């Protein structure tokens, strides 16, 4: 019963909004989230739950799959370090409100130490420990070798390395040109551009959330919800034929999933206006083209007329402002396309397979 419920809500259609809401709650109540008590409670409840869940044979199979073991460890450490940064930010924000300097700014923390031996010793020990860990691991878990590559056959499911599974999940909703080239390019350029876009000197050298809530929320939403969460979905919950399987569901090769998709142009001309698709490609896709231009131009313009947007535009200038708006809008395309796919089975907003151009 409970297992079926968990299977039901972990489908990305339901778990993605849940994760987004949890993320915003976490940002809003970061002071509660950042207490040691909260983390202890989370671990006290979470760890027994995972062991309890592992009594299920299907879940145990996914969890102990040699490829997946390090990913579980990474998720645990990611959870810890996310909490740690929130904890430090919560402590600092309380201090700043009380008129004290942040912990990193106190005289005892500003004291300098020698690189040798203090840092190099630690590094040496960590190096040895990591090597021992890797050797032990290589002995215990065998590398999952598969058969020789064959250009006319693909494993099922065919999964990318774990760090690309967020990208592979993205590709379900996009044309390969968009999700494989354009969006990763924007991500890399956008991350490189952060130091040039961000003129806020607050938070340099110390943890804080209160002094820069927008920057931290935007980044962490993209990282935790749109990247890490999609990796988790891709690693643990995508089975044969890239169909979704709940954590307690058997990977049945013949699970049927209705995934009939149609393009916006077909919605508009055939279903909406009840007429055949126009011959001209551009006329056929005119709705999608207009919507895309509106999406790229209107939000930035409208926000600049609002009070907060006006302040921001004045503070950081035109180029920075519109570049930032463009980056945020590009990030927004992923949740938008996911929701449209789930709600309306929409495939592409602009579909021009004749030119290999699909949005």
């Amino acid at each position, binding site marked *: 019963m409970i297992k079926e419920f968990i299977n039901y809500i972990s489908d990305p259609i339901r778990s993605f909004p849940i994760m987004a809401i949890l993320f915003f709650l976490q940002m809003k109540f970061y002071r509660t989230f950042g207490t040691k008590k909260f983390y202890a409670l989370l671990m006290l409840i979470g760890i027994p739950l995972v062991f309890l869940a592992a009594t299920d044979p299907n879940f145990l199979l996914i969890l102990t799959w040699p490829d997946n073991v390090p990913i579980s460890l990474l998720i645990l450490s990611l959870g810890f370090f996310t909490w740690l940064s929130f904890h430090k930010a919560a402590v600092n924000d309380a201090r700043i409100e009380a008129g004290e300097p942040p912990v990193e700014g106190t005289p005892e923390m500003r004291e300098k130490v020698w690189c040798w031996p203090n840092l190099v010793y630690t590094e040496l020990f960590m190096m040895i420990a990591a090597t021992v860990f890797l050797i032990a691991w290589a002995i215990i878990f065998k590398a999952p070798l598969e058969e020789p590559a064959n250009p006319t056959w*693909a*494993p*099922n499911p*065919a999964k990318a390395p774990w760090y690309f599974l967020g990208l592979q999940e993205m*590709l379900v909703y996009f*044309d390969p040109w968009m999700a494989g080239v354009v969006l990763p390019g924007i991500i890399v350029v956008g991350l490189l551009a952060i130091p040039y876009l961000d003129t806020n000197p607050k938070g340099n050298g110390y943890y804080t959330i209160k002094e820069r809530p927008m920057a931290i929320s935007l980044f962490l939403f993209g990282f935790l919800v749109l990247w890490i969460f999609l990796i988790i979905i891709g690693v643990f919950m995508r089975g044969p034929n*890239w*169909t979704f399987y709940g954590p307690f569901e058997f990977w049945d090769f013949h699970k049927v999933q209705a*995934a009939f*998709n149609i393009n916006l142009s077909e919605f508009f001309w055939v279903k909406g206006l009840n007429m055949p698709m126009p011959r001209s490609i551009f006329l056929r896709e005119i709705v999608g083209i207009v919507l895309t231009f509106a999406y790229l131009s209107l939000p930035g313009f409208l926000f600049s007329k609002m009070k907060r947007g006006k302040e921001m535009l004045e503070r950081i200038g035109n180029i920075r402002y519109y570049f930032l708006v463009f980056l945020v809008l590009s990030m927004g395309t992923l949740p938008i396309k996911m929701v449209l796919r789930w709600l309306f089975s929409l495939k592409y907003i602009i579909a021009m397979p004749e030119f290999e151009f699909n949005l």
Partner: protein
Amino acid sequence: MNTLAIKGGKVMSEETKTNINRREFFSYLTVGWVAFTAAVAGLLGLTFRFTFPNVNFEPEMDFLAGNPADYEEGVDERWKVKYGVWIIKLEGRLAALSNICTHLGCIPNWLAGERKFKCPCHGSGFYQNGINFEGPAPRPLERFKITMTPEGTIKVDKTKIYRYEKGQWDNPESYLEV
């Protein structure tokens, strides 16, 4: 600089070696840059040569696929592993369907129970005639040129591709009437 620079048949003194004049400096610079450019060009040439392998294990681009009578109505998988082609027989027409997904080039599987091709990478689905209907694939599977030899066997030529969205499936070379 331990090597002795020799100029005009005379061994130069230690002093002139350490203070090279302007003209010599530029000639060294030129030699250096020419050598560097030549080395880079040579490396690039080798890299370019490397992209053309000496031995090519790719399957043949055309093959004989037996008699039309060998095929039942529906999808035939016998050439999939060797040549990457499904022979489909629908409504009295034979066609050679590519087994490369039009989304990102994975190899879909034929699910006989569901009567569809399903890609294992991102879940694109195609009807048995190759038309895409689910998942992210933007266009139908491609078809290859299929002709009849004078002996009555089917010949599939993978170098010639017919795409549905360009209206090429009506081309008489993209199917065989049987």
